[in-house]
């Protein structure tokens, strides 16, 4: 820990909040059908898309119509991703001649990218053709982000409309999210990243002649390729020298820009944004980190603008920022203190002007501790899931923070759109609880919260924990689940709990030690991702429909104002209490027990 590290965090939060306001105002204009200056440039593309799909963007939809169209769009998107992976061996733009992906892995990846989870069961540079990356995964990066934003906009419209059944047009919301927001920002970011050294080319992988050839021990194999055992029955090894290094290439910058902006997080390469070609410099790191939270933060202002009361948006943004800054600080402090099990090894882990210090296992020197921990917290606060350090190698309590942020339901910023609609559901629950305490009918933004609204909100809040805990329990009971674990003890349990927390909250980051690219995990995690996404989207749209149909109730003396610091506290109390009560027992078996053993056995 040092002043430079704290400074980085302060600069990050300041720049984020500074940019969120103008972006939020712009996005509000986009969804209200204005943004006329942008329309002059992009209006043509927008109209071509409507014509190609044969839709009328001005036609209002009921919530059921809206949901059906959105589900078809997502289902077809997932099928396209599945098909392209299976057939990539026969398709163009496959310079490395990768074969088709296995059925279970292709299912997992299709579910993952359609649901905005972007869990990587595969290693990008050794599995996916350029065409699959661009035209399958890249397209879903845009489509799934736009899906989240569309659902949020529909919910906001529902809150602002009175006694109608029309919550807007889904094609209008999807197309405008992509053409006016995601695409221009991605193009800007992609070019900026390419200037820093992120690769963007269609050339095949190249190789360099190593400055000093590498000699290593490899498992010996006979002529038929079978492993050889020595006299003691152990696998024999042989000295092998390699004189070349493969340099993986591809259209990465365009992919990385949208995976950061759309809270997708699925990397072009196996190690995601820790890879020097995906995130080469501290500046590229800052831009990518900014892109994680930029749209989710901006949408809070969009919300305030669209409901006609900026204070409502600011209250939600304040609640998110408080939790984010607190947890980012704690994580930096924990990681900066280093790994006590290495204290006796004769190493220097004290941060100075020339030494990053701390726990550097699984981290890159150009980022150090501060930029790595800030990323770990941002990527799990948002449902982004990209990584620039290996979360499995965090000290136990520092690893608990990203896990818990996912378990809170991805509402601290959260996914683009999905984070804020999740937070709005918690806001509904918070006014309901507050209403019970004072004995008044709860209302939010002039809409009564009745039995139906609370049922829908409960579904949204309860489905992910059910999937996380149920999935983890299933995995630890089955041999197939336990065999995939890499680290012994509580850390192994934490790997499984992390995987299901990630999948069932559509995050996508991992404790990478878990070997999850097999039938059991590909299937169970894939199913968890689908339920977590679509069993939340449908009730949220039902809420939007119910609010749109309801009368407006003017605020009275008994109304709890939802823009005050008091409400921020009530809201955070609701989010943190639900999250803590649900997951503390499971967390105690993993990171907490690991922490106690790490510090207690010396």
């Amino acid at each position, binding site marked *: 820990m040092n002043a430079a590290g704290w400074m980085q965090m302060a600069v990050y939060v300041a720049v984020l909040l500074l940019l969120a306001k103008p972006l939020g105002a712009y996005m509000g204009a986009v969804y209200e059908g204005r943004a006329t200056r942008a329309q002059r440039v992009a209006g043509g593309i927008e109209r071509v898309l409507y014509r190609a799909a044969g839709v009328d963007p001005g036609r209002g939809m009921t919530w059921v119509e809206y949901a059906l169209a959105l589900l078809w*769009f997502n289902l077809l998107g997932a099928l396209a991703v599945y098909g392209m992976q299976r057939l990539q061996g026969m398709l163009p733009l496959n310079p490395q001649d990768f074969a088709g992906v296995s059925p279970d892995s292709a299912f997992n990846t299709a579910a993952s990218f359609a649901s905005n989870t972007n869990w990587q069961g595969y290693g990008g540079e050794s599995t996916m053709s350029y065409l699959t990356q661009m035209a399958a995964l890249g397209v879903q990066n845009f489509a799934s982000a736009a899906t989240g934003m569309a659902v949020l906009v529909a919910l906001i419209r529902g809150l602002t409309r009175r006694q109608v059944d029309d919550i807007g047009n889904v094609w209008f919301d999807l197309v405008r999210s992509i053409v006016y927001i995601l695409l221009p920002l991605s193009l800007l970011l992609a070019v900026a990243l390419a200037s820093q050294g992120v690769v*963007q080319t269609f050339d095949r992988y190249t190789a*360099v002649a190593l400055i000093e050839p590498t000699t290593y021990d490899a498992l010996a194999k006979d002529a038929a390729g079978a492993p050889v055992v020595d006299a003691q029955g152990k696998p024999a090894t042989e000295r092998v020298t390699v004189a070349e*290094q493969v340099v993986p290439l591809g259209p990465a910058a365009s992919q990385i820009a949208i995976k950061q902006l759309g809270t997708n997080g699925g990397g072009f390469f196996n190690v995601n944004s820790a*890879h020097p070609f995906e995130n080469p410099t501290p500046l590229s790191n800052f831009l990518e980190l900014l892109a994680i939270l930029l749209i989710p933060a901006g949408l809070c202002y969009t919300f305030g603008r669209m409901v006609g009361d900026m204070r409502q948006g600011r209250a939600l943004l304040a609640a998110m920022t408080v939790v984010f800054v607190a947890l980012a600080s704690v994580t930096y402090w924990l990681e900066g203190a280093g790994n006590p099990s290495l204290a006796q090894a004769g190493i220097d882990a004290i941060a*100075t002007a020339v*030494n990053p210090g701390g726990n550097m296992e699984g981290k890159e020197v150009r980022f150090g501790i501060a930029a790595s921990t800030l990323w770990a917290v941002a990527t799990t606060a948002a449902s982004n899931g990209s990584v620039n350090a290996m979360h499995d190698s*965090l000290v136990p309590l520092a690893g608990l923070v990203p896990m818990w942020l996912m378990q809170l339901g991805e509402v601290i910023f959260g996914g683009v759109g999905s984070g804020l609609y999740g937070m709005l559901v918690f806001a509904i629950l918070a006014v309901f609880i507050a209403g019970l305490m004072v004995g008044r009918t709860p209302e939010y933004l002039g809409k009564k919260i009745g039995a139906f609204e609370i049922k829908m909100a409960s579904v949204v809040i309860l489905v992910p924990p059910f999937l996380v805990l149920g999935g983890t329990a299933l995995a630890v009971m089955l041999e197939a689940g336990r065999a995939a674990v890499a*680290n012994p003890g509580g850390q192994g349990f934490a790997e499984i709990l992390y995987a299901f927390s990630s999948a069932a909250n559509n995050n996508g980051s991992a404790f990478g030690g878990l070997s999850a690219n097999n039938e059991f995990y590909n299937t169970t995690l894939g199913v968890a991702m689908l339920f977590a996404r679509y069993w939340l989207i449908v009730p949220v749209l039902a809420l939007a429909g119910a609010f749109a149909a309801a009368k407006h109730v003017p605020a009275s003396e008994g109304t709890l104002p939802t823009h005050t610091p008091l409400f921020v506290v009530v809201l955070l109390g609701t989010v943190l209490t639900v999250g803590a009560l649900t997951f503390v027992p499971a967390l105690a078996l993993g990171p907490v027990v690991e922490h106690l053993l*790490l510090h207690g056995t010396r």
Partner: protein
Amino acid sequence: MVSHFFPALRMLIALTVLTGLVYPLVTTGIARVAFPSASSGSLVERDGKVVASALLGQSFSSPRYFWSRPSATLPQPYNGAASSGSNLGARNPALAEAVAARVAALRTADPGNTAPVPVDLVTASASGLDPHVSVAAAQYQVARVARARGLSTSVVEALLATHTEGRTFGVLGEPRVNVVQLNLALDRAGP
């Protein structure tokens, strides 16, 4: 129910053309014209032969070179075809054993040096391809490299100083040394 099927299909195809083909092609065009080297792997040539990417680390084991950070890629370290971290948990005994072995190897290569080893030099990077070490980790190796090459430490230190990068804008990231570029400069400097 099915009335939304064809609009959804047609919209998906249109968006695939726009975001899956046009967008990456336009980005590639801009990147190729504006940043031809950076967008194609930042390759470094020596005597007409491509010997490195400035962004991908390489493994060094000779005392004549500065050593990179440990790499967890398989089967060999710094395998560019399969990036990977170790994913060892903080309390995994394998981590403590690996770190102890790396410290011992550094001590064997430079018996006179009893200073504590900077932590980044004995812990595996996230990517397995980290091209950098910390300034402290490079300074730790100066005496060994100078001795093996028959250079004075001041010459090596001067080279190290010219290859040290500070924090971007004085705030972002960590001060660091690109091992690949430093070693290429060492080879240029003489024996």
